[in-house]
């Protein structure tokens, strides 16, 4: 099962939980230290930036090592572009990963992240090479293999990226398999995906409340996001129509059951949002907010009721109004909701991420239309920025 030391993983979760309570002032620093000594964690886990640096450097090492191996052994015997050779390289990375994890106790150190990433990438490429024949890729076996591989990596290393890949590959497999094997597959595929993702979400929801899967908490959370996304996308009007067009080669034709899909497009985000508020579930709440934007974008694609500038202005004013109302309403905590900052120290504060985003998005003010830009001469005042990207 999981490759990392299980006792340390449990102790790490315990320490994190206690640390959070210490930040809130429920537990003294001395108590935290005693608990830390009683439940030690022996992993090598450096900070975020060390992790990024080690990730980049490990990628460099493996890339050049694979390059030199291919040059020495494979190029002479035409092995180089076979699936077997790529798979062999993947196994090499995987072996290194297992060794690093078991003997050096690396845990989310950047080195193990990079080796896992490369193993998954190379084995995925190998399976794509195996199941393609003169530029024809057989998507069904490819997605099935990637699903199995990423499921294995997820179970073995509890990695969130692998969990996301696993969920996506599963949907791809169902899509390609159903449309290929089942008669009227393309007409029924939205409903199949809906049923599967709803079932999987329900299953994962229950799974995450069980103690023995605590080590996979974050993976299951990521999978839930993928399932909710799949559930919505399967019934989104634009997606359904585009996929239908691809098969029938008739662009822009209204789809059967159009009303149903329009309702789905518009209502599901609200259902997520409402359910998220009711259940106090962050994943549902945030998915609801993001998908409302998707619903509006879909609607505007078909019906141009207002010019873009008006939509942006009114939408912005509306959002500010909603946020302001919510803040006023939650000035004192109500119904278990609060507006106050969570006490858990936020990782992003290290890099002051918010201020960097502000600079990136607002650095260039909305500027005159493109053909007039030359008036500003060498000052490079225009350049598009936010105004032209919409």
């Amino acid at each position, binding site marked *: 099962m999981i490759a990392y030391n299980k006792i340390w993983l449990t102790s790490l979760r315990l320490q994190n939980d206690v640390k959070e309570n210490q930040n809130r002032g429920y537990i003294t620093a001395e108590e935290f230290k005693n608990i830390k000594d009683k439940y030690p964690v022996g992993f090598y886990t450096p900070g975020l930036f060390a992790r990024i640096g080690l990730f980049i450097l490990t990628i460099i090492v493996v890339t050049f090592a694979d390059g030199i191996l291919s040059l020495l052994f494979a190029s002479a015997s035409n092995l180089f572009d076979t699936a077997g050779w790529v798979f062999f390289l993947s196994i090499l990375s995987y072996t290194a990963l297992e060794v690093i994890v078991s003997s050096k106790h690396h845990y989310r150190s950047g080195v193990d992240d990079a080796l896992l990433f490369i193993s998954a990438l190379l084995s995925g490429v190998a399976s794509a090479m195996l199941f393609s024949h003169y530029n024809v890729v057989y998507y069904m076996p490819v997605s099935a293999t990637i699903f199995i591989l990423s499921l294995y990596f997820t179970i073995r290393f509890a990695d969130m990226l692998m969990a996301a890949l696993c969920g996506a590959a599963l949907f791809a497999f169902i899509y390609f398999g159903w449309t290929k094997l089942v008669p009227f597959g393309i007409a029924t595929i939205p409903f199949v995906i809906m049923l599967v993702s709803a079932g999987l979400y329900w299953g994962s929801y229950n799974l995450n409340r069980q103690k023995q899967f605590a080590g996979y908490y974050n993976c299951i959370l990521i999978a839930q996001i993928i399932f909710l996304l799949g559930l919505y996308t399967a019934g989104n009007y634009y997606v359904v129509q585009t996929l239908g067009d691809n098969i029938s080669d008739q662009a822009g034709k209204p789809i059967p059951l159009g009303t149903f899909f329009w309702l789905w497009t518009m209502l599901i985000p609200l259902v997520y949002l409402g359910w998220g508020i009711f259940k106090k579930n962050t994943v549902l709440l945030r998915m609801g907010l993001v998908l409302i934007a998707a619903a509006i974008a879909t609607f505007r694609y078909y019906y141009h009721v207002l010019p873009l*500038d008006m939509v942006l202005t009114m939408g912005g004013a509306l959002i500010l109004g909603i946020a302001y109302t919510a803040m006023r309403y939650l000035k004192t905590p109500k119904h278990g909701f609060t507006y106050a900052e969570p006490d858990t120290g936020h990782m992003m504060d290290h890099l002051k991420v918010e201020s960097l985003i502000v600079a990136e998005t607002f650095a260039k003010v909305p500027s005159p239309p493109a053909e007039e830009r030359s008036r500003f001469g060498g000052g490079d005042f225009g350049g598009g920025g936010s105004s032209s990207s919409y």
Partner: protein
Amino acid sequence: MDSLYEHLHADGLISDESFEKIKQKQNLFSVHWEIKTLLYLGVLLLTSGLGLLIYENIDTIGHKVVLALIALICTGCFAYCFKMALPFTTEKVKSPNTSSDYVLLLGSVSFLTFIGYLQYEYKAFGTNYNMATLIPMLVLFFTAYYFDHLGILNMAIANLAVWMGVSVTPKALLLNSGFDSKTIIYTYLVLGAILLTGAYLTQRLNFKRHFKFSYQHYGVHVTFISLLAGYFFYYNSAFALLWMLALFAIAFLIYLDAFKSHSFYFLLLVVLYGYVAISSLVVRMLLLAQDEGALYLLMLYFIGSAIGLIFLLINLNKRLKAS
């Protein structure tokens, strides 16, 4: 989870008092980040919408209304912020409430839109384009310092770059690869020097010390990139070596400073930019050999050096934590 704390309590790891506190604690659901994101999105949409509106309706009577609306938003926001702001100090000042940060942001961005439009339509600053970018920049710097707003400081730094004729935002730095002209390289170099000096002075004079990160972040990237660009620009002349020497000197200074201020981020940047510089020298030497064996040597160099750097980073991380 409560059984966990009962367990810890029974083991004597948690005092009775702390255990009581944990039992009493309310698990409130915080929507802090959701609301902050909404505020940010609202400001972004509103300002870009208004920015489009005035230019699209330029020949109709409506654009005067839009212009008045922008001016109104701008003055309203600044009036609110001046009223609410806590007195100015050289230390970090907490903003009076969360929404005031975004009110200030809305005010500043609409001010930029307003100035840009005045210049476009009425030539308010004549043909002196320097003035048209200088004034917004000064206003942004003043706003950032007076109200203690990191986001606006970053906007001001970006506008400083615009005033000098270049750009510092990561996207523009990566995409506008205009590093093939002497003027641009030297402009970036001067900008980087200004920002690094700014970072140094911020700490030295103890004036808004928490602003140091922003200056240093942009300063380090811009300086290293322009020094590398300079090296490649003068690749075939002896002058190239001077750029490399300057790069290593700067790298050493930032290395010392990163240790002093316990910042692994800057340590990592020094290591990675330094690695790029050393590697480009090594590649150059090996290419001189013009031999097939050189290719193998090159690959071996990258494998060996990257492994070495991995140990270096692990070691540096340890030392930084210990110190």
